[in-house]
């Protein structure tokens, strides 16, 4: 059977610092009509570059150096067309449309969205301007843009991120392509928006018979949406199989390792993540042999002797690029399973509260005009009440604008709350002045989201970790300082001999370890972790999660773990606090929250998170959610969730439901449970 699209041995090189880097190293794949496939891989695996290479969108200093692309209806290898030829332009946007990751920057800021879609239609469908305009409005309606006629004349910056991505979908589909490539199209968006958009893409594609390629790093997304999956690593395809088969019987050691490393929403509490040690090879120095060899648990001597293996069919429709025979793999698997599996570190449970927060509020003034007159306030957080026990982890989840970072900053006393109290170990710190705060500061430390921007690029690792030791007089002599710094390095699993290096000489995971060492340096009681792993690759995430858990068991620290990834939060936390638009919706123990979800928002949120298992996915009940998270300034009166809630009643529109204990420490702010 002829495939709709077939890529053969694509090779793409980039030239940086005079070195040639093979970003894509011999990728072959195919796509059939109407099919939805997923390409999954970590950053730098070459998944996006493969797609860009296919359409000859690689620009200098990159170059497609080899390979063939066949598209149904095209007589020859598409890569033979000139990069700006009539033929390739007919394919680009006409037969194959693409949606990119960054909705904020992917639309031209000085052209109206209508123009940008209309232009695409006129280019590929040979319609008159008027007809194209009509079609554009049709397309905008199809992706649920309200008031499409008026919005035609709007500029991209007048839309939210989710809306812009809808516009991108409308634009991509407007030329009736046969293939749609969604390149990390929903990565930058909130979970609920993400699932809305992917469902929309799937529905439109199924209706129009368009084939879809979903490119993502998220295994859950491919498990939910893709029918067939390619797993990429370090510029090559490691494994290809149908979704169910891939997740139930992964064949390649990389896929197996990956599935052991990622937390899942439906995990039992005691599950231990097994991280993939090491780092992906630097593409400039990729070995001739299997690129996963250095991190592979299944590796054998023969793997290093032979060149990189090609994909071979292991059973029907299941391909993997591994040299090991079935027998060898089974043997290795037995060995690995026999090896003592690390148990979850034992933690002591304490009774006393480390932190008690009651009714804190934080408003930000809005200034306008030349004279900077205060015209209003953004009510960032309201009536936040919770407690944190010693040695416990409390997860805070919520989508953008829910106020989770503001809460963290109030606790750190970067902000001073308008009202309410914060008790740290029984001591009121809500309105402390700078001088007294200085004594408290070392006791509440923070780990930041972005390991790139949270470390001063001009300081050495040593001075980053040791700064607070010096500033707070925790050490007296030079020797003591160095001993303490070395100790901190070892504590977070870094070699102290690396301490003279500057941040950019470390990998992302190592940088985050430096950030953790810095947080530990002042011997804190609480560490606020603000999305500490979301900037890391999945194979690295498990390392950091495990490290945090070990440190907690060892040092008895309390964590306030802020994240948008529910699966991670659920894995690491004892209790979870769900926020929406500046208010707490629900607080409960992890399993209680998952098994006995009360608040309609929590239900929708949990249902939006895909689980990396197609079988489980197929059996899950989906809770649909309307609309998008509104901006804080447009928060409705009454329950903040009311205009997206199915169960909203008259009462919800009038009053804010109070946070009530429904028993067993399960708090919920909803009138349904009164």
């Amino acid at each position, binding site marked *: 059977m002829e495939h709709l699209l077939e890529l053969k041995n694509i090779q793409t090189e980039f030239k940086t610092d005079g070195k040639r880097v093979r970003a894509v190293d011999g990728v072959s794949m195919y796509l059939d009509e109407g099919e939805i496939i997923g390409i999954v891989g970590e950053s730098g695996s070459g998944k996006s570059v493969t797609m860009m290479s296919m*359409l000859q*969108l690689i620009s*200098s200093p990159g170059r497609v150096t080899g390979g063939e692309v066949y598209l149904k209806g095209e007589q020859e290898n598409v890569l033979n067309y000139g990069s*700006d030829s009539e033929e*390739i*332009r*007919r*394919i*680009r*946007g*006409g037969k194959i*449309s*693409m949606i*990119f990751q*960054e909705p904020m*920057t*992917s*639309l*031209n*800021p*000085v*052209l*109206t969205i209508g123009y940008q879609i209309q*232009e*695409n239609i006129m*280019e*590929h469908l040979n319609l008159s301007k008027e007809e194209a305009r009509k079609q554009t409005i049709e397309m905008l309606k199809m992706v649920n843009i309200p008031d499409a006629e008026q919005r035609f004349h*709007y*500029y991209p*910056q*007048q839309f939210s991120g989710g809306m812009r991505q809808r516009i*991108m979908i409308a*634009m991509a589909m407007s*030329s009736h392509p046969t293939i749609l490539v969604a390149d990390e199209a929903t990565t930058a968006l909130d979970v609920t928006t993400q699932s809305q958009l992917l469902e929309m893409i799937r529905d439109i594609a199924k209706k129009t018979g368009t084939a879809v390629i979903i490119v993502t790093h998220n295994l859950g997304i491919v498990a939910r949406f893709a029918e067939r999956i390619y797993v990429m690593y370090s510029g090559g395809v490691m494994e290809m199989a149908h979704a169910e088969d891939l997740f139930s019987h992964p064949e390649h050691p990389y896929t197996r390792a990956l599935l052991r490393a990622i937390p899942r929403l439906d995990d039992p509490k005691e599950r231990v993540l097994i991280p993939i040690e090491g780092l992906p090879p630097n593409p400039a120095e990729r070995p001739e042999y299997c690129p996963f060899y250095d991190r592979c648990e299944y590796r054998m001597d023969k793997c290093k002797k032979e060149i990189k293996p090609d994909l071979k069919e292991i059973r029907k429709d299941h391909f993997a690029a591994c040299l090991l025979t079935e027998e060898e793999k089974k043997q290795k698997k037995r060995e690995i399973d026999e090896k003592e599996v690390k148990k979850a570190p034992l933690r002591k449970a304490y009774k006393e509260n480390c932190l008690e927060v009651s009714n804190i509020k934080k408003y930000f003034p809005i200034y306008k005009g*030349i004279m900077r007159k205060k015209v209003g306030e953004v009510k960032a957080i309201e009536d936040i009440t919770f407690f944190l026990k010693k040695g416990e982890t409390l997860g805070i989840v919520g989508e953008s604008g829910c106020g989770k970072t503001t809460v963290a900053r109030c606790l750190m006393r970067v902000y001073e709350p308008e009202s309410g109290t914060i008790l740290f170990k029984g001591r009121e710190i809500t309105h402390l002045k700078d001088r007294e705060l200085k004594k408290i500061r070392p006791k509440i430390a923070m780990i930041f989201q972005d390991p790139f921007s949270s470390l001063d690029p001009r300081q050495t690792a040593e001075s980053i970790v040791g700064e607070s030791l010096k500033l707070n007089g925790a050490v007296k002599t030079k020797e003591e300082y160095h001993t303490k710094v070395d100790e901190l390095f070892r504590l977070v699993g870094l070699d102290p001999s690396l301490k003279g290096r500057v941040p950019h000489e470390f990998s992302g995971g190592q940088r985050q370890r430096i950030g953790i060492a810095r947080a530990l340096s002042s011997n804190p009681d609480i560490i606020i972790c603000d999305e500490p792993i979301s900037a890391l690759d999945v194979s690295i995430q498990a390392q950091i999660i495990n490290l945090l858990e070990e440190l907690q068991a060892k040092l008895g620290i309390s964590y306030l773990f802020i994240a948008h990834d529910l699966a991670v939060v659920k894995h690491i936390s004892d209790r979870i606090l769900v926020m929406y638009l500046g208010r707490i919706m629900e607080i409960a123990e992890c399993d209680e929250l998952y098994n006995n979800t009360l608040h309609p928002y929590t239900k929708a949120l949990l249902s939006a998170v895909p689980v990396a298992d197609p079988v489980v996915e197929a059996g899950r009940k989906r809770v649909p959610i309307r609309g998008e998270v509104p901006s804080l300034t447009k928060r409705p009166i009454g329950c903040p969730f009311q205009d997206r809630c199915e169960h909203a009643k008259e009462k919800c529109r009038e009053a804010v439901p109070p946070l009530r204990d429904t028993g067993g420490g399960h708090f919920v702010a909803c009138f349904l449970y009164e």
Partner: protein
Amino acid sequence: MGIYILKRIAQMGIILFIISVFTFMLMSFIPGDPVYAMMGEEVSEEEYQRVYYELELDKPVIVRYFSWLNKALHGDLGQSTQFHKATSEVLGERVPITIYLAFLAFLISIPLGILFGVISAVFRGKGLDNVVTLIANITACLPQFWVGVLVMYVFSLKLGWLPSYGFSFPWDGDIITSLKQTAMPLFCLSLGGIATTTRQTRSSMLEVIRQDYVRTARSKGLSRRKVIFVHALKNGLIPVITILGMRLGSMLGGSMFVESVFSIPGMGSLFVKAITSRDMPVVQACVLITALVACMVNLLTDILYAVVDPRIRVE
């Protein structure tokens, strides 16, 4: 958009106010007695008293400033000490010449600079780009006065094609003579402007070509021409437009040299003469006028900017 323009006008008002204070203070910065500085040391007691009161030196500085400002707003910028005439009279004939030259050079250099910049960006890395960039890099560094001397040597002294000095407006008589007289001054004035605008347009276009929305445009299968002229150009020109005011300012500054080289009786040559003879009222007037013109152009470009960039126009 109306609010945006009002805001800009208010900002310009503040800037002009600060400049007026600065200009006024030029007078008081002069070391020594201002009367001696103006009239020379051998001034009679009577004369000294007269000037002393005329300058209102007996009053506090704030009062003097506002009285000076009040007069300045009515067109009275004091007496020129070297010509013994009202400053406005001295400047009256000279300012139009300088503004004429500067605006003409501005109008020549901006479109040419943008054109060369876009060409250079479109052919990035190719031969044409290298040539344009090299020439632009070199000409941007040439001293204007030296270019003036050089072209004068070649076209007036050696070839005898153009007159080496003099100025007349085209509407005041012979257009050909006027053109011949202004050809070399305009060339000198425009050269640097073309070079700088070319460099700026090129780098701004290259920056824009890297943006995600240009990739989107390419992924839609648009032709290279459409990608560049519809999607990239408008964005690329925004930074070029924002500093048009400064471009005109540098034209006004350049006219100081060009007028000196080609003996043109404009504001520039007057300014130089006023500085050497410490004719402070004229110095003040020249600074005020250049700043005022530059500010006006800035305001115009701000408005133009709002027209081009919808991010300003719509909230």
